[in-house]
Each structure stands twice: as C-alpha cells, then as structure tokens.
C-alpha cells in the first residue's frame, strides 16, 4: 500500500470552486468557473491549449489569487494550512539538480509539514514501491528524464495529501512506468483521495476519470459524469456484427459497411430498438449490437468547434 486510507471525511466536497475569475492585461483568462471535487475520484480537467486550465490550477494551488470567486479546500478558504493537504505535479517538471533523490523528497515533504522521521520512512517505502530504492543517494541530475519524473510524482504524494493535482503526469514515461503510475492513481482513489488530472490525452481521461470539467476560452463548457456526458453526445448510430443479409432498413439514413460489420446512422426519430426489431424479424444473426458513443476525443473537438462558431 502506498498510502494510508483517508478516514472520517464523509462525502463532503474536498474542493469547491465557486465563480472564480482571473484577468491578465484586461483579458479574461478564467471566466466564472465553478466545480467541485468529491472524495475518492479521479477528475479530468480538460481543454485545448490556452483554455485557462493552468491558471485555474494555479488559483487552486494559491499560487495566484482569483479576482473574484473563492476556492475552498475541505470546507475552508484556501490558506497556508490547507496547502499541506494538496499535492501538485506541474506540467514542466523541476527538482533541484544538485540534491539527491532522498534530499529532494525530504525537502518537499518538510515544506508540506511532514515530520522528518515520518518523511524518511515514507520516502523509503515509495522508492521501494516504484523500484527506485537503489537510486536514493543519486543526484537528480544523474537520473534519466523518466526517472526524475517518477521522483517528482513521489514528491506530489509523499505527504499523503487528500487532493492531488497532476498536470500531464504520463508525459515522458515509458509504458511500464505509465502503468505503474495508473495503478498508483487507482490505489489513491481507493483510499478516498482525489486526483485532478489535467491532460490533452483523451484516451487517458476515458480510462481513468470518473468525472470531467472541460474548459474552453476561460469558460466551463462541459461538466459531469464521464458516462453521462458520453451518452449525452452519442450519435444516433449503432455498431453491428452480423451474419446474413441486412437488406433495406427503414429509418437508416446512411450505412458504412464492411464484410460482416456495419455502422448504421439512424434518421431523426428512429431509435436503435426499432432497427434491432427489423433485423430480428429478418432473421439476421447478430453477434454484436452496440449503441455507439463517440470517443471523448470527438466530443472534445465538437464542443471546441461549437464554441468557436
């Protein structure tokens, strides 16, 4: 186990962001954004470049102050004390090059209020967990990029924070370490801790996130359960693996066919059930019948496209 489970917090929101706004040079970078993070979830903060994700994260981290609105962590307005409950992995990684792996972990842990003996023990366990115990006395400058990224990930969780904010955590990692990190994220979630995952990689969001918030041009454009959003954006089409002849089908506008498989795009007002009924009546053997939900990638492009119009 990489962390102790969190106890006694109920279902109270870990983080509440209400109506935060930030302008630089008369340009609104973040415009009236609100969302909350619940205990034990992986939350995707997504959006195109320059949408305002990093500015939002910096306000959550108290690196910059919002012009209006407020950020509450564990029900309290952000303060020096609440900072100890948050772990932050910025997009561009940095550690002190001259410090050793152990010194880096201990220094960041100390700034997060972890007592030295406990920090030493945690650092040892975490290094063991990611298979880097042998490198504990190496200087950061001697590590490979992927290794130093793993260390930075450990600095984000060494103080057992309830909320972690990770900006593109998988960039530069090989597949083995990517899997290791994903496992650790699931483990953290299982303990009731929450992770805000800021990324461009929609497949990671689909794989990891429970809920998402999508920001574009400083405004929130999508917010909610990933499953619910996907069903909201489903196209009126079905995927079909079959044997036999499809023939003419009522209510199908167009179809894309391959031998033994097809995607049927339905006319407005036609339901997938009505099509299935016709197929069954014709005696077509159906191996798969799936209402298609678009990949998040497509939803992303669609929503960004809409807000450009």
């Amino acid at each position: 186990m990489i962390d102790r489970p969190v106890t006694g917090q109920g279902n109270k929101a870990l983080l509440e962001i209400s109506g935060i706004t930030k302008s630089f040079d008369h340009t609104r970078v973040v415009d009236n954004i609100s969302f909350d993070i619940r205990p034990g979830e992986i939350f995707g903060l997504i959006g195109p470049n320059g949408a305002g994700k990093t500015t939002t994260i910096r306000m959550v981290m108290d690196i910059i102050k919002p012009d209006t609105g407020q950020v509450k962590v564990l029900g309290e307005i952000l303060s020096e004390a609440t900072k100890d409950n948050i772990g932050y992995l910025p997009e561009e990684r940095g550690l002190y090059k001259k410090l050793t792996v152990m010194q880096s972990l201990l220094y960041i842990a100390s700034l997060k209020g972890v007592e030295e003996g406990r920090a030493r023990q945690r650092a040892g366990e975490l290094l063991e967990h990611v298979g880097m115990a042998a490198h504990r006395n190496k200087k950061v400058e001697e590590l490979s990029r992927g290794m130093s990224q793993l260390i930075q990930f450990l600095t984000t969780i060494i103080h057992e924070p309830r909320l972690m904010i990770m900006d593109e955590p998988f960039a530069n990692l090989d597949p083995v370490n990517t899997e290791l990190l994903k496992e650790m994220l699931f483990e953290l979630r299982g303990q009731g801790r929450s992770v805000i995952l800021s990324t461009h990689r929609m497949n990671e969001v689909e794989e990891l996130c429970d809920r998402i918030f999508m920001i574009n041009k400083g405004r929130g454009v999508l917010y909610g359960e990933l499953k619910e959003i996907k069903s909201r954006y489903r196209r009126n089409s079905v995927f079909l693996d079959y044997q036999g002849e499809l023939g003419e089908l009522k209510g199908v506008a167009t179809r894309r066919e391959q031998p033994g498989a097809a995607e049927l795009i339905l006319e407005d007002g036609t339901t997938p059930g009505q099509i299935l009924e016709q197929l069954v009546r014709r005696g077509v053997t159906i191996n798969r019948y799936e209402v298609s939900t678009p990949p998040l990638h497509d939803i992303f492009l669609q929503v960004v496209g809409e807000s450009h119009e």
Partner: protein
Amino acid sequence: MKAMNKTYLIFRHEFVNTVKRTGFIIMTLVVPLVALLGIGIYHTVSGISKPVAEAEKVGYVDKAGGFDQFTSQGKITLVLFNNPDDANQALVRKEIKEYFVIPPDYISSGVVSRYTMQKELYPPPAVMNAINTFLLKNLLAGEVPAATAARIEAPLNLVTVTLTASGEVAPEQGGFGSFVFPGIFSLLLVLAIIFSSTYLLQGLGEEKENRLIEILLSSVSTGQLLTGKVLGIGTAGLVQVVVWVGSAPLLLNLASSSIGGFLSTVQLPAGFLILAIIYFILGYLLFAVISASIGAVSSSSREGQQLITIFTLPAVSPLWFISLLMMFPNNPVWIGLTIFPLTAPVAVMIRLGVTDVPAWQLAASIATLVVSIIAVLMITVRVFRIYLLMYGKRPGLGKVLVMAFKG
C-alpha cells in the same frame, strides 16, 4: 510532532545549499589567500629593495679636503683612496662595491661623481643616504654643536593633533591607520552584496526555469519564501565575511614584521563597529530584496544578472572616488551619497574612516535605507507571484508599480 516552521525550512535549505556551492567555497578561501599572496609579494619586494643586507665598503677620493670623519655610516663603511686610479683598481678587484670622487670645487658646485659596476635606474637609497650624511656631518663638524648638526640632518618630525570643536584633543586622531578598517569593511560589504545577490538571482532563476517555484509557492507563502531565501543566503554571506575577518589575526601576524607596526597605530572611531554592523545588515537587506524583485521580473537568471548591475554599480561607486573623498571629505556630494540608499552603506563606511559624519546625516541615511527596504519588500511580495509565473515576459517598470499598488 509539529512540523518545523516553513520559513526556517527554506532558510536552512538555502543556507546549506549556498555554503556547499563550489563557487562559495572557492570565494571564501580565495580572499584570505589573495591577502596572503599580497603579504608574500610585499615581503619579497621589500626584501629585494632592502638596500644593504650585509656590510658594504664604498670608496671615496677627497680632492676638496676635510672629509675624513664619520666614515662609518650604518652598515656602510667609507674607505678613503688617494686617487681615482687606486679606487678604480680596488673596484675591479671587488674590494669595494663602488666609489665616489669629491672634486676640488665641491663647496661651490656640490657635484660628486659616483662610479659603480651596477646597472641601475636610480642610486640605492641606502648608499645615497650614507653619502649624504657623511658629507653633511663633515661639513658641519666644528661649525655647530653636535646636537644642532643632528637637527640639521633631520629638521622636521611632524606630529599632528586633531582638535574637537571646543578646542580639546579629539579622541580619534584620524590618519591612514583609522582609514584601514573602514576601507576593508566597505570592500567586504561590496563583495558580500555582489555575491549574495548573485546567489539569490541564480537560485530564483533556476527555480523559475525548472518551475520548482510553483511547487514552492504551492507549499509556502511568498513572504515565507522570500524571508527564508534572503536570510539563508544572507547568513551564508555573513559566514563568508566571518571567515575573512577571522583569518585577519593570522594574516596580520604574518605581516607584522612589515606592516604590523603601522596597523598597531590604528584607532577606530568610537561606535564604528556598531555602525559598521548596522550598515552591513541594512545594505545587505536592501540589495537582497532588490535582487529578489529583479529575480521575479526577469525572464532568465542571465537577464537578472544584467539588471542587478544597474543597482550594484552605485553601491560600489563611492570606492571609485575614494581619493577625492580623502582630499575633500566634507564636500556636499558626500552628503548626497550618504543619504541615497544605494550608495549609503559603502559611502558611510568610507567617510567614517576619514572624517566625522554628523549624526543627522547618519540618522537620515539609516531612515532612508529602512524605508527603501520596506518599500521594495512590499512591492516585491505583491508582484512576485504574478511575474514569477509569466515566463519569458518581462514587464516594464510602470507596469510593476501599477501591479504593486493594485495588488
């Protein structure tokens, strides 16, 4: 167990990492080594030019007559020859080192011809001195009493006494001696300011370039970060100065045979040490907060180094005009330099060694320093977060001030 104070944690981190830097260790050792080298060179040079190490014989031919007494002048013995040929042969045989001829018309012309095998730009002072005294004493012999002759030989032994406004003997008598320590202190202050501001800028630059600053600011407040950094690096600078000052007794011991006598005449102005410490701390703090603000607004540590020069040059500037200060210690320009915060620390230290600095000027200069430190610190804390995160963009001065007042 309660975690340690975060300011202290940053202080400790900055202190330990500054002290462990190779550049810091080299600089700490180099200054005493350079001083040691200086003493070595002084000894060697003064050893070379030391006029007479062993007893020497100098020949002379007396054509004027009457120069036959006082032939022993310190380590130089004057040997009379009857004619130049004999003296020349003795010189060739190396029985004498050189010889001189007093011509018959010496009394009217004063000309004395000197013959030597050495190539030299200028006659050695010891030989000149010996010949001079020999001629003088022989000329005066029998004419005036011996005591008068001795006085003619060295007529002036000047003793200056500085009086206070009320006509009493002043406690500090000035002179080069009392100038030495203020001079050394102001040099050390300048070195400490330059090195510390460099370390501060390099550190901030590194943290800005690799985004560590975001992790730091997500863990501690701007105030804690700045205070920890300024004090940590400042303490490292102080350790450096303590090492330099601490090595002084050893160096002075080595130097005592040559310059030690001079240093023993040193009298420090009353309260100098207290003022030196006050100005040292205020001077360092001012430049540290300026460095921090420059670190915040500049896009790279290199740009920061260039910008900070605008501020460190005025700090050093009083040292450039040190000779002018010695000649005109009470020129109004010095009052300006004493009160202007950037030049104050060094200007005051130098002036204290040369002249009295009126209390109102000290008060005004300390007050402006304190006000400047607080003002720069406040501006820095307010703009720090905003501009630290604007990588690659440096705001104009106007914008920084607007931000500072807007918050």
